[in-house]
């Protein structure tokens, strides 16, 4: 990687960041620290403040309160050094330039860019080099925009809903390219609507709602934070009180001998269950998908909006 980073500083550090647009608090006091090399998914419904947060990390806008640092520096400094590459939301390309010219143009503005041919090969747009942007499919355009984000060989890559315009096959190819690329230790922050993308590609998930971070952790942990897992079993001779007292149990249902336990840590619950009730049988554990976690964590408390 061409961009040396201030040693020890996190890739991204937000502290008490707020941003208002008129009366609306688009980002309402968030703290977020992303370590170098992490791949983080930023999830949340429309209007949750994802793009506003990303704009501040990129230095495109400044916070009303709080601080934003990228590799220990101001975002605009990191941008000027080519340390951040980004695919912005709703961005398009210039129709009067070819793909190779567009990438070459952005490369020429950076101090130590990757060779244009290499970037095109990595992002799979070599065959499109001579084509104008208005002759590209949605997926091809996104790949070109990915190439633009990558051309400065940035240490931090930020992707704001990169696959929004893609069909499933294009989306798979796109993530394959990202995945191969991040094997080199690049830090990635991506916003997405597609939960499977977060589950599959992120080390860590950050959920936003109404300008606040409502959950932050490894994919498995975030999932558990919302609805955890459900343990079903037949437990002869068990009482509701004893079951409810098992570790990490959040809810308990008992009918005849059939038990349904909701747990925030199914491993701990199950170990304790088997220890206390060795006769327990027909055990099933179902995991609530990230989708459920997403819905329950991001659902508005009231329905006024």
């Amino acid at each position, binding site marked *: 990687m061409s961009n040396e980073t201030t040693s020890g500083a996190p890739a991204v550090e937000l502290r008490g960041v707020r941003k208002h647009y008129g009366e609306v608090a688009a980002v309402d006091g968030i703290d977020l620290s992303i370590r170098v090399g992490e791949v983080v998914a930023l999830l949340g419904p429309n209007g949750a403040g994802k793009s506003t947060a990303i704009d501040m990390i990129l230095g495109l806008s400044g916070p009303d309160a709080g601080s934003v640092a990228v590799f220990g520096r101001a975002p605009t400094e990191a941008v000027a050094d080519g340390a951040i590459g980004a695919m912005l939301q709703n961005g*398009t390309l210039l129709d009067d*330039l070819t793909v190779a010219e567009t990438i070459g143009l952005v490369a020429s503005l950076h101090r130590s860019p990757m060779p244009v041919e290499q970037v095109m090969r990595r992002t799979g747009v070599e065959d499109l080099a001579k084509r104008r942007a208005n002759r590209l499919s949605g997926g091809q355009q996104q790949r070109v925009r990915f190439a633009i984000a990558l051309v400065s060989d940035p240490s931090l890559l930020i992707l704001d809903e990169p696959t929004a315009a893609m069909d499933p096959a294009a989306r798979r190819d796109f993530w394959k390219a990202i995945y191969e690329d991040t094997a080199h230790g690049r830090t990635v922050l991506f916003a997405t609507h597609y939960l499977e993308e977060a589950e599959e590609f992120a080390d860590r998930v950050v959920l936003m709602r109404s300008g606040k971070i409502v959950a932050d952790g490894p994919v498995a942990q975030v999932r558990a934070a919302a609805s955890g897992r459900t343990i079903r079993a037949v437990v002869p001779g068990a009482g509701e009180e004893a079951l409810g007292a098992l570790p990490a149990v959040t809810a308990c249902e008992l009918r005849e001998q059939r038990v349904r336990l909701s747990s925030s840590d199914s491993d701990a619950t199950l170990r304790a269950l088997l220890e206390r009730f060795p006769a327990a049988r027909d055990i099933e554990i179902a995991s609530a998908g990230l989708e459920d976690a997403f819905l329950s964590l991001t659902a508005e408390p009231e329905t006024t909006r």
Partner: protein
Amino acid sequence: MSATYLRLEIVRMFRNPRFAIFSIAFPALLFLLQASLFATGKDTDVIVQVLMVNLMAFGVYFAAMSNGARLAVERAAGWQRQLRLTPLSGRAYLAGKGLSGLLLALPALLLVPAVALAFKGVELDAGSWTRILVGIWLGSIPFILLGLLVGQLSRPETLQPVNMSISLIMGFLGGLWIPIDGMPDWLREIAPVLPSYWLTQLGRGAVTSDLTESLPVTLAVLAAWTVGLGVLVIWRYRKDSSRA
């Protein structure tokens, strides 16, 4: 700013047929047409020369406005935001647009006199040629700023009608399309309100002393337009970047 960036700014414009037609071919053809229609009887030399400087001014004007119009398109396409993620500063972006405006003015600036030389046998001394070419070229600066301002204030949908209206006013009332010699008195009184009148004066003073303004006054008026429009462009730029 890089040489590649500037080169591509120019290349992009030549790929735009509207630019090539209106800024390059149209002024040269309109010159030939007007010279054939109006340059009859005595003193045809001066009439041809006046038409030549007017249409050079028009070509340069149109190039400047087309150059600025791209700002609106680039903002709407999210391209400006993309460029803000490179080391290119906002100031360098605007400076690049100004420079490309000057370079894009060159084809019209040179083609119209080339046609005038080839088909109408225009003869002028070196001093007059220098004043016409350098004067009109640098006189395009306030119009480049006007183009940038329109580009900053417009959306791509509103750009065409806005630019068309300004062109009609500058063209008909400011003396680019109709020489002031052919204007009724009341119109000739109004014309100096428009900067395009002063742009044509830069060249007109080199070919005739009839209906001309003095060079210092002409330069002062164009300099005032440059400062005024420059202030507006910078004000708008600051407003845009603080809001984004």
